[in-house]
């Protein structure tokens, strides 16, 4: 069993989970993920690393409560235990001195991109960070990301931030003024897709961190297969990072929502069993 040190709601629906896992912590690299189960009836789900501390032996992830397993996780408290916590999984993000790199993220990806922004900065890059939130009250970790960013933008639907627009359009306008050597994007599939489309015409290498359905996370099952450059890849062992311009996005969208009805059934069942009194 793995102990939870902290579970905290960062913003509505997005939570931080800090876990005591010394063996995992000492091997973590930016871009990797962990597999966990909230309880023995739960699903095995992948969560991207948001931070870790090898000395303290802790691993931090940020997740959005969307289905039964993440809902269960969102109700955990410090001191609770997880029956499954394994990792780090997946290939680490490619970190080197590229020149000027823009990191675009939204939703849980704001946490997930944090180690990448930090590592890119430490590798000597000029790092631009572009975050997407619907409104000010959904922003978190702004300071942590600003600390490693040479430029910092936020696209949002309210007027609080500097870019009241959707992230691909903001990205396109940045591209007009700034020459970028690479774009790295993490967040919901739609965000990664639109950011990849925004950079396609300029041919700027755009790395996406794919988040398909997974079961074991070790290459054993193929649930996470996706088509990249016309070839089937397993996101868990060949990825999760791929070239956003080579991904078959339609296939990924369909595969990601393939259990939609089951997910709703599962949530209804769980709510009835656990949340409704009497």
């Amino acid at each position: 069993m793995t102990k939870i040190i902290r579970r905290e709601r960062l913003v509505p629906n997005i939570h931080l989970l800090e876990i005591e896992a010394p063996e995992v912590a000492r091997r973590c690299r930016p871009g990797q993920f962990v597999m966990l189960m909230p309880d023995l009836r739960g699903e095995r789900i992948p969560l991207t690393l948001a931070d870790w501390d090898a000395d303290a032996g802790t691993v931090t992830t940020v997740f959005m409560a969307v289905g039964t397993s993440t809902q269960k996780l969102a109700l955990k408290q410090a001191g609770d235990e997880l029956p499954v916590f394994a990792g780090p999984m997946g290939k680490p993000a490619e970190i080197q001195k590229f020149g000027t790199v823009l990191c675009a993220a939204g939703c849980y990806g704001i946490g997930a991109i944090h180690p990448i922004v930090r590592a890119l900065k430490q590798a000597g890059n000029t790092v631009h960070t572009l975050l997407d939130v619907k409104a000010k009250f959904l922003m978190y970790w702004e300071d942590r990301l600003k600390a490693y960013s040479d430029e910092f933008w936020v696209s949002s639907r309210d007027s609080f931030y500097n870019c009241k627009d959707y992230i691909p359009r903001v990205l396109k306008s940045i591209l007009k003024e700034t020459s970028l050597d690479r774009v790295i994007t993490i967040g919901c599939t739609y965000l990664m897709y639109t950011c990849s489309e925004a950079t396609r015409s300029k041919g700027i290498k755009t790395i996406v961190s794919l988040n398909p359905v997974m079961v074991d996370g070790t290459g054993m099952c193929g649930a996470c297969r996706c088509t990249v450059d016309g070839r089937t890849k397993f996101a868990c062992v060949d990825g999760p990072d791929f070239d956003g311009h080579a991904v078959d996005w339609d296939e990924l969208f369909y595969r990601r929502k393939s259990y939609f009805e089951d997910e709703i059934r599962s949530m209804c069942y769980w709510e009835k069993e656990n949340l409704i009194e009497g």
Partner: protein
Amino acid sequence: MGDQKKELSPELKERQKAGFVQEWRKELRKSLSAKERMKIPRQKMPERDPEERNTDFQEVNLGLAAQAAQIEARRCLDCANPQCVVGCPVAIDIPAFIKLIEIGKYADSARKLKETNSLPAICGRVCPQETQCEVVCNLAKASGVPVAIGNLERFASDYERQQGDVYIPEIPPPTGHKVAILGAGPAGLTVAGELAKKGHQVTVFEALHVAGGVLVYGIPEFRLPKAILEAEVDYLRRLGVEFRMNFVVGMTASLDDLKNEGFESFFVGTGAGLPNFMRIPGENLIGIYSANEYLTRVNLMRAYAFPQYDTPVFLGKRAAVLGGGNVAMDSVRTAKRLGADMAAIVYRRSRVEMPARVEEVHHAEEEGIEFHFLTTPTRFIGDDQNRVKAMECLRMELGEPDASGRRRPVPIRGSEFIMEVDLVVVSIGNSPNPLITQTTPELKVGKWGNVEVDWETMATSMEGVYAGGDIVRGGATVILAMGDARVAAAEMHKYLSGLS
């Protein structure tokens, strides 16, 4: 690869002889003539009714009753030169354990099994006895019907477990040597048991949250109940084996990291955990699973009990399973149990080339599974939501034998037809899982990504590192993995003894 030796080693010959000349065995042989023994019909394994069992996940075979087991044991001629032992990949002293059943000493029989096999309740259920020990049984040559060795193995080990007093052998004083086993599948569990019994400190590292490997994620409850596996794993724990679950060697730590932790010898038994696909158009449509994914969802994650368990699985009404092996049989029988109206095997060769056990094929047929032989899909067709709705198939005919010695299937031109399906399970084998080999460059691998070994010793290219099972063989059987494991364990013991 790794062909079984056709003759027993001198030590094993000695062991057989010593057992054969024991007084009680002599007397038992005299008590009933071979002729009388040969007249006894093979005792039938009681099975649940097909129409009842194909709707649930309870075990199909019920096990022999004690009386039937004793009668069956009487059929064994207790040969001077028992071929069954030669046929067994782990060289169980088969006549000895069977004769103990004949005289009613069931617990002793189970102990006898455990001298050479740490997991007899599992082997008694999933081994292909008909191609190993039973095929060479002298009774089969004499009367046509071999002794039901597998059913008797199951009986003795079930008896021991059910009466609750599982014998734990005396463990010699600790040797002080630390051994790491990578993978808690059949090979790893076997090595763990053997080395723990020698007094070594054994730790098993397992990536998943349950021990058993393919025994837990692959083989369904109706063929191997989880409780049986749990009991076998519990036995290993009582032998002093430590399990570290959720530990992915290659990711959580490398082999070198473990060396630095003080582990002196290693066994790589990480299995063939990388599913092969057909590589035909439409294979990533929704509703197409690898057998690994389909069975893992149902067995390990218990999707059959969704939504009590959170992991879902598609419940096809028209399910096609591609392949003809035991995994394909497990998959198709699972689909039937989950409510498929049509659950069909689609296999590119004919019945006789199917690698599945005869018993499994027979059970599948009884349960209403359809078989489409000499058929291969060429593409999958999806609906507007990218869900598979049909597959285009081609009829085949058998041509000249290929490298495997089986006649090669050749497509018949213009024979395309459409089969309507809403669930497809691809069960055409696995490749070795790359996680350890990728992170351990010193480990020499073959062209399929399999770890290369010296078949005499199961030693890899790295000193002190041994390997066995599917990571070496590609896709094989539980018992071959266990055979490798026994060889490796003996060599690892020698290696460790040489260190001190």
